[in-house]
């Protein structure tokens, strides 16, 4: 209930500010022309041109084809103001077998980071652009939408966007602890903006 109230409050806030951005309503969010450069968290469109939008059932149906599962959930950052002696032990759980590239759906993304993202997906699909790929993060997250958009632009023909993300998966299935993809993080070196 409170969650709904909170969403309503933000919707109202968006309207008040006259923010014509796509993030001010859960319905009829238009697809931006290119990548979405607003905050990662926000209402997303129902569609992604060139990709198949799938729900949990759609994902379950696709899994026997062993799609590349690309998780772009942002990594939790140590909060500013947290005393140095507090243990900070962030952990991330994802779909088993997923490759986690934190922040790979951020836009803009440094060109060299984008190159690493595409290289990693190419490796995961064995260089076959007709192989199925699934992008996801959490509900109401533009990161996975952008990641899908990037792959479509790169010529992948079977991009699947799974908007329910980790939350939509863990209701019915086990998750596994995911570590950030080492190749992605190596390229990172404090580069990626986290918003």
């Amino acid at each position, binding site marked *: *209930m*409170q*969650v709904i*109230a*909170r969403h309503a*409050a*933000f919707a109202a*806030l968006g309207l008040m*500010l006259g923010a014509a951005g796509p993030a001010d309503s859960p319905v009829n969010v238009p697809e931006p022309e290119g990548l979405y450069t607003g*905050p990662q*968290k926000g209402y997303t469109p129902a569609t992604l041109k060139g990709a198949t939008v799938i729900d949990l059932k759609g994902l379950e149906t696709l899994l026997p084809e062993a799609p590349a599962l690309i998780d772009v959930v942002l990594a*939790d*950052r*140590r*909060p*500013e*103001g*947290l*005393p140095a002696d*507090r*243990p*900070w*032990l*962030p*952990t991330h*759980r994802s779909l*088993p077998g997923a490759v986690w590239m934190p922040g790979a759906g951020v836009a803009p993304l440094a060109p060299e980071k984008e190159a690493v993202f595409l290289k990693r997906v190419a490796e995961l699909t064995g260089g076959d652009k007709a192989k199925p790929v699934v992008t996801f993060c*959490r509900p109401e997250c533009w990161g996975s939408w952008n990641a899908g958009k990037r792959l479509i632009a790169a010529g992948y023909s079977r991009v699947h966007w799974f908007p329910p993300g*980790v*939350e939509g998966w*863990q*209701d019915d299935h*086990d*998750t*596994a*602890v995911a570590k950030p993809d080492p190749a992605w993080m190596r390229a990172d070196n404090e580069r990626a903006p986290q*918003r």
Partner: protein
Amino acid sequence: MKRLMLALSLTLSAAALTPAPVLAGATDTDEERAARWSEIKASIFGDRKVEASESAVKIDAPVRALDAALVPIGLTLADKDSVKGLYFIIDDNPSPYAAHFTFGPAADPGEIKMRVRVNNYTNVHAVVETKDGRLLESAKFVKASGGCSAPMGMSDEEAMKGMGEMRMKFVGDVQPGKPAEATLMVRHPNFSGMQMNQITRDYTPARYIQKLDVTYGDKLVFSLDGDISIASNPVINFAFKPEGQGPIKVVASDNQDGRWQHAFPVPAASN
């Protein structure tokens, strides 16, 4: 091979007589969760032994929380006279160590209630520390996600309005010789540092109640070490022994040098 390893490790743990309460129908996931708990345990308790004891402390929590930023937790302690302290840990929160209560002579530590933030589907653990130095743990799985980063739905200024104000509600009349129940409410956003300001897109720095001391007369009821996992506008239910003199005094301080103090008269005991 994986299965074999799992079977092996289960056998080993059974052999070592380490009860693992959340391992019913063990899977890789359970194994990972157990490993996580071991890591956290070591960071908090070092090499002290933590014994599983579902009966020492019972955790009441919704299996599925309505609001991950406000998950109600009830902790019932079986042998309250032997209790010295109580830890509450939310395993998969990035800052898992949510709360540590130290009880004083004026406490009646039979039950504590509070509200916490839960970042993702996770085990939560309560650990009782007894006066003779034993640590007794119990666990529960909670389904909630996004609680640490959930924005409050208002501006930071608005959220901080009246910061440090407090109220205390006493349950019924305070009877001599009988433990009395009270609810302490503190107005404070308890910013987790993981909440993004939806307009500026900056993260609001962590600002949370670090210490809460509740005394009755000259005796301590409890002292709480808090963390960013405590929900905004902390509400804590506790009980105390009504033998003290004077008001109940509360001193709260946060990690940004905020300090507040209030005194609440205890309703007169009726005969």
